[in-house]
């Protein structure tokens, strides 16, 4: 069969046109499925937390650990007693460890050695995200630094990169160490890293983080740092706050009132 140059070009043109309008045809064909965010989801551009330790301490001294327990229950965090293999999402560090650059000889007794609640800072410029070779650690549009455990290969680059020790590695199967299993949230498996997810699963369904909700002293204030009218921004505008290791340029989204 002979094809003239003219016919060949015509056929080519028709094919090209077909390809261009194909997506539209598919769209009109009906029976399309969709993925949507829940209408209840909290919306924000940059979630953050202001932690008022002065409100926390009196309760903390009485033994209150509500925020840790709520987190543990919500996320099936194993209670590994071996210090070297501990899994931590939210915990306390003495002032000198949490804010090493602030430490000096004559530090006020009211702060010296005091416990500070620490967790992943959901950094605006997160080194953990930059180093993760599989993109298992990534930043969501609302600022949450999130992990996709399906993709984590356990290389632990992120642990080396995080300057806050906010990440833990599962050296063994975490399941035997989970006290009370929440069947609605997956556990992790041996060989993956885990950390605080800012309760993405709750935010997406309209609830504040579990720790914020659980604190009886109201020491944790959650909100959108991008919204000048949010409660967190109002506190930041009116009171002196500090961040952990701001000199590193990670731009933490967790602020502390001291």
């Amino acid at each position, binding site marked *: 069969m002979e094809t003239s140059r003219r016919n060949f070009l015509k056929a080519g043109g028709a094919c090209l046109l077909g390809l261009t309008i194909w997506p539209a045809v598919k769209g009109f064909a009906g*029976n*399309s*499925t*969709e*993925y*949507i*965010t*829940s209408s209840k*989801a909290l919306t924000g551009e940059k979630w953050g937390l202001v932690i008022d330790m002065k409100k926390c301490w009196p309760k903390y001294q009485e033994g209150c650990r509500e925020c840790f327990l709520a987190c543990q229950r919500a996320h099936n965090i194993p209670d590994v007693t071996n210090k070297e293999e501990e899994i931590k999402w939210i915990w306390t560090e003495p002032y000198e460890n949490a804010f090493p650059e602030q430490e000096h000889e004559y530090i006020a007794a009211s702060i010296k050695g005091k416990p500070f609640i620490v967790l992943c800072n959901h950094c605006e410029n997160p080194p953990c995200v930059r180093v993760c070779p599989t993109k298992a650690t*990534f930043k*969501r*549009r*609302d600022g949450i630094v*999130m992990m*996709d*455990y*399906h993709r984590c290969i356990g290389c632990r680059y992120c642990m080396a990169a995080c300057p806050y020790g906010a990440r833990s590695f599962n050296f063994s199967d975490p399941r035997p160490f989970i006290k009370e*299993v929440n*069947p*609605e*949230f*997956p*556990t*992790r*498996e041996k060989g993956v890293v885990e950390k605080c997810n800012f309760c*993405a699963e709750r935010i*997406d*369904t309209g609830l504040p983080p579990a720790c914020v909700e659980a604190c009886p002293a109201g020491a944790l204030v959650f909100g959108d740092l991008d919204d000048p009218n949010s409660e967190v921004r109002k506190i930041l505008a009116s009171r002196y706050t500090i961040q952990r290791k701001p000199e590193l340029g990670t731009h933490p989204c967790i602020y502390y009132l001291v």
Partner: protein
Amino acid sequence: MNDSRYIITGLIVFIVLVTFPFWANAGKAAPAPAPSLDTPAIQQLPEKQCVEATAYMRTDHMKLLDEWRTQVVREGKRIYVASNGKEYEMSLEKTCLECHSSKAQFCDQCHNYLDVQPDCWTCHIEPKENK
């Protein structure tokens, strides 16, 4: 032509060996799984219909679940609008297993038959009822 005896014997031995797996297993085919989907939750459904048509779920559930995972974990989108317009939460624990409450019946039978080992359950929590 003197070697034809050896050649023919050799060929027979070869053919027997190569076809060994076929005739050794002839007639012993494992029965196709017939999972019982009859769970209390399904019985209570007014219309016994999964999130999509059964034929599609049978052939494509893995692709659907893979997409659900991407949407939930990476995009923060948690609601699936099915082709019939109904909305479902994209959750293995909260949606799939709500009805398919027996992993042994619903997942394992076919996966074992086909010898595939998806590693969902090292992290996702399997339902209690498991017969």
